[in-house]
């Protein structure tokens, strides 16, 4: 296995032997590596003495864990009730169009953005809402999307 283990091992050492550690461990490993690869989960299983099936079971249960490489910036589009009745579908369409995402794809070809649908961001009064990394943008219209993507140095035309 080709792993740069040193930083991973440091994370593992922090959680080894602690009860209820699996989820925070996976969260931290994902922060470190961007996603949870099969190799990484296998390695965690050996190091933590937890069956690989259990790790995989947890990783697939929670929507936050990603099993594929992610874009540099994560766009979370809120699909909550308030956003839904305020036109979230139009925002989603505009995002897909501007990111040139084919059906079923989540990450742009250049790896700049990953688009995720989330249940509710809790900013319902500003619906419809998206969140890019830790920044929230509210009261959106499909037309406002290009200017927001531009803030993240996204070259829309080149795609």
């Amino acid at each position, binding site marked *: 296995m080709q792993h740069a283990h040193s930083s991973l091992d440091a994370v593992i050492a922090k959680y080894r032997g602690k009860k209820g550690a699996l989820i925070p461990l996976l*969260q931290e490993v994902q922060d470190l590596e961007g996603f949870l690869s099969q190799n990484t989960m296998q390695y965690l299983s050996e190091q933590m003495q937890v069956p690989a099936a259990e790790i995989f079971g947890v990783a697939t249960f929670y*929507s936050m864990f990603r099993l594929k490489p992610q874009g540099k910036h994560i766009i979370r589009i809120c699909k909550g009730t308030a956003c839904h*009745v305020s036109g979230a579908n139009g925002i989603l369409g505009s995002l897909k169009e501007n990111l040139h995402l084919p059906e079923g794809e989540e990450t742009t070809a250049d790896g700049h953005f990953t688009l995720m649908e989330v249940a509710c961001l*809790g900013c319902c009064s500003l*619906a419809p809402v998206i969140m890019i990394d830790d920044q929230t943008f509210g009261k959106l219209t499909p037309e406002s999307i290009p200017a927001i993507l531009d803030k993240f140095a996204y070259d829309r035309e080149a795609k």
Partner: protein
Amino acid sequence: MNEIIVKVGVGSCGLAAGAAEVYNKLQDYISSAALTVKLKKTACIGMCFEEPIVEFSGLESGAVTLGKVDPEHVIGLLDDYLMGNQIDANVILAEKQDGVHNELLQNQVRIVLRNCGVIDPESIEAYEASGGYTALRKALDMERLQIIQEVKESGLRGRGGAGFSTGMKWSFCYGAKGDKKYVICNADEGDPGAFMDRSVLEGDPHNVIEGMIIGAYAMGADEGYIYCRAEYPLAIKHLKIAIEAATQKGYLGKNIMGKGFDFLLHIKEGAGAFVCGEETALMASIEGKRGMPTIRPPFPAESGLWGKPTNINNVETWANITWIILNGADAYQKYGTEKSTGTKVFALAGKIANSGLIEVPMGITIRDVIYKVGGGMKTELPFKAVQLGGPSGGCIPASLLDTIVDYDSINKTGAIMGSGGMVVMDTGTCMVDVARFFLNFTQNESCGKCTFCRIGTRRMLEILTAITEGRGVLEDIEKLEALAVNIIKGSLCGLGQTAPNPVLTTLRYFKEEYLAHIVEKRCPAGVCTALLRYEILPEKCIGCTACARKCPVNCISGAVKQTHVIDQDRCIKCGACYTTCKFNAIKKA
């Protein structure tokens, strides 16, 4: 001379509306001009529709609160205040809209939200100055059973939605045998359309923490968890700061206030699973497992986290405790109805004028919440329904607007009180689409353990999708009803037991809308795209070609300055032509 204070609301909603920019502009200006002005942060006061909100105070002219503050104008506004000039009346909240804001606040009773948007949530001193941690001091001098009795007599019921008596729940955990006990705060606020817990944690984290310490003392727990959604980064940040500060001050940790009582509090971040709001699933998640519910009994009070007696309450429930200890059960009971005492926090969203966070006494009518506190509808479109209780709740129609807010009255409508999300819908909302939206949600979030929940919700979603796409048949309504009954009976936890509610309530109150979709193949609200038809009105079309150029499938034909025509067979009903046309020449039907 009084200190001049400038407060900026920097909750999640404020930040999304541009509050950070307003704050930075003020900070730069105050330091560069060397003003003796104190700049403070606060969280959400609840008037999210007016964000960013800034308050100036300290001058003899009194305090003034400004709404929708433009970062470009905020310096000028501050200058006006400092120099005693007239401030632009358009931004002063108290003067806007003929006193709507005064009415908004007058109809509220703020117990849980008393500090939200008032104090700096990152400062424990600010919390102490507003009476913080005096309830804990008082509680530690009380008998443990006396605290539980007080909570019982207050009539407080679980604000997470089910409405079980909090005092009873505490007494079960108190009575459970075991040397190790846990208390948990459920902050996994997953209902789409709800943000009460986020605002409370962002705006007044110490109030929740103090409530938990009191509860832990009363029940004999020495360790606690706050299980918070990872989608709420600001709430988590404020909680971490608060726990650190409370530990420093000796409100948490060993030998609290010298009374020989220890309490350790942790934050556990959720990883994105709606079902973890269910208490047994939540505990499984804290233990690091897949968050799947287990059969009760045993109830958490006997065998909960790691098999130890555990008490779980929701954020808002915990946030009521300090007030009850300080003011007594009798004072709390003065608010509300006989069986539902106190207040309830609601998150108003959707097509309502004053979207935001409010706290009203139980017993108020839904009509008053929407029209007096919420300011009525956002646009000229009339009211159609209000969705209460998220995916477990239901849609209440106009004819039931005089239903009062208490657990039992709302249950009678087929909806539930839920945690307090209130999404207002106007005639531009399709109720079949809303039902489909919620079933899509529950179908996605079902953990998969119970067959009826796992497969039954999927079947319901398929039927609803067919109806919204014009493929519905009359028997579908009976099938939906039959599935609903079986899913309710055949599911272990609240997720499955309540999943059919959005369908059952819309069927009960808006059946004619289902029939319009099924029989007439028509969506009366004009939402379901497959049932829409776009047509160009020859008398209005000037042949500008804008629509034809915008059409993604090139199905609009016509020469320049000639009437255009849409090829209905190829039209994908995306609506691009409709929004592009500047001459209202395209009809949506």
